[in-house]
């Protein structure tokens, strides 16, 4: 029983790490794309 739980925990941890990695990859890809799109002028902040 304990072995089964440990195995499940390991799988879960692996899946979470993989998920985070994929997400980070997407974020960095978006960042690069937007840097190319954005020209050199600075943006002014929005108002809530």
């Amino acid at each position, binding site marked *: 029983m304990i072995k089964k739980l440990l195995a499940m925990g390991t799988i879960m941890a692996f899946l979470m790490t993989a998920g985070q990695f994929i997400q980070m990859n997407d974020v960095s890809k*978006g960042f690069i794309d937007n840097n190319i799109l954005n*020209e*050199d*002028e*600075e*943006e*002014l*902040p*929005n108002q*809530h």
Partner: protein
Amino acid sequence: MKLENFNKVLKQARLDANMTQKELAEGVCTQAQISKLERGDEFPSSITLYLISKKLGVDAEYFFRQIESDRVEYIDDVKNIVRKYKRDKNYQKINNLVRSQLNTPLAKENKDFYQFLLWHLGICAFYLEDDKHKALKFLTRSLSMRDRVLDKEREVAILNSIAIILNEKENYQFSLKVFDRALEKVKKLPIIKDFTIEIRLLFGASKSALNLWKINQALDYSQKGINICKQYETFYLLGELYYQKARCLKRINDEESAVFFRKSIQTFLLEDKKEYAEVVEKAYVKYINKLKKGRKEGLK
């Protein structure tokens, strides 16, 4: 209705009527009972309340109206302080104030106030903790209260905050969709109490559209925003909108861009927003240099 302030209202009314506790008690109840009422140890029966109000020369409703107006004034005060901090972008102070109010009976009882607090808790989570998910969770929770709140403009303001957060996280596509949805909702409002909300939405929408290279759309939003500023004779976000228009025109190589860079700088200087004027000035100088360089190369 919470009656915990009844004692304060009663004492104030007695002092306003220039009476001692003994004088008020005559023909109504004992002086000891008046004392207990003013300390908040007891609440009056309806008959005692009727007799007290008659003696003080007010109707019994007076006490309830006073209790309610005190609470309304208090909520308005909190909202005004939060708005001031928001203009100064002092999110730490907003967070402290909002958190101190969140678990009060007033916040739990007044849905409008609770929604206002949740909305700002969302904004603070984004700027102080850089936690987009937490921020959006608070914002959608406050949005879900829309059917229980009378203020329909609030819904639009919360959508504006959601769109801004999406924009700042560079999710421009989704951000623009939310801005558009909020703008549609503004059109459906029977009365707009706060005209600045539409200007805020148009400015944000223009920024998101420009980041998506939807230049004509971005230009259209900024022009609409400028028109509203002119209609209401306000400087609110006018400098930002001129700058936005200049940026759009620059992208399509329209030399009229320079005119709007200058208008933006002048507006910010009039408003004494030197930091913003400097940002625009920097972009303007770069643009002019680029133009000059282009012309020289053309002559060669």
